[in-house]
């Protein structure tokens, strides 16, 4: 199955988890997707193989980046309802506090939708949504200029 087919499948069945299942790296991280009225919420389970700092211990910053990025992709797919995967242009992650090795949630919102570019803000949190562990801004190319 191609990724576009998986996206189409997920959109028609209303189940974003179907996208995750088609992407090996998201599967490797064990990502789960839920939904609320604001869109998809990605859940990263705490596990040994995502630890970056074994002393604290804390989740690897790059894995948090991957969670934020995947959540943003998922959100853009869900908002656009188009069977295509948006191309990421850049990602700026801010790390607010060390992420304990527990369930981590992330949800995105589109801050501006242009003709070709989507600006997306993503937030990742653990027990308390009011205390995000990391946030990110990213740009996506959602339509080609030609």
């Amino acid at each position, binding site marked *: 199955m191609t990724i576009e087919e998986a996206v189409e499948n997920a959109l028609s069945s209303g189940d974003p988890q179907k996208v995750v299942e088609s992407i090996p790296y998201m599967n490797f991280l064990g990502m789960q997707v839920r939904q609320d009225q604001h869109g998809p919420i990605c859940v990263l389970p705490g596990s040994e193989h995502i630890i970056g700092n074994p002393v604290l211990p804390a989740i690897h910053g*790059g894995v948090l980046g*991957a969670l934020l990025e995947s959540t943003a992709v998922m959100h853009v797919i869900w908002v656009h309802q188009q069977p295509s995967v948006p191309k990421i*242009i850049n*990602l700026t992650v801010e790390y607010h506090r060390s992420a304990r090795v527990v369930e981590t949630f992330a949800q995105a919102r589109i801050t501006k939708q242009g003709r070709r570019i989507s600006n997306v803000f993503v937030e990742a949190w653990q027990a308390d949504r009011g205390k995000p562990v990391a946030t990110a801004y990213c740009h996506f190319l959602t339509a080609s200029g030609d």
Partner: protein
Amino acid sequence: MTMMIPWQDHLVGDPETGILHGGVVTTLVDSVCGYAVMSYMQDLVDIATLDLRIDYLKPALPQQNLYASGEVYRMTRNIAFVRATAYQTEGDPVANCVSTFMMGANTGVLPKRRNRDAEKRSAGK
């Protein structure tokens, strides 16, 4: 500081093309930036990433190792400024990155203040 991650099935973002997931690039680049700071430090203190910006220049090709090189271009007592590139062929970057790190993040232990007077004295000897 250079690091490499071999191409592996479970790191793929698009199974049709075998292109690596962007998150893998993020993880490698974040690691190389952190290691660049650690290898630059004279006293070992805790560090934490404050922010990390990545520009994805092009997709990481399948079946090829991914490299990332990072360097500290400015270090102060509190903050380290780092830049890094991810590539598969040298001189042909896949992604560019700039990041900042806080020194003494969890313990509050900062690198020792440099004793410039002593350095001058020993240089004069």
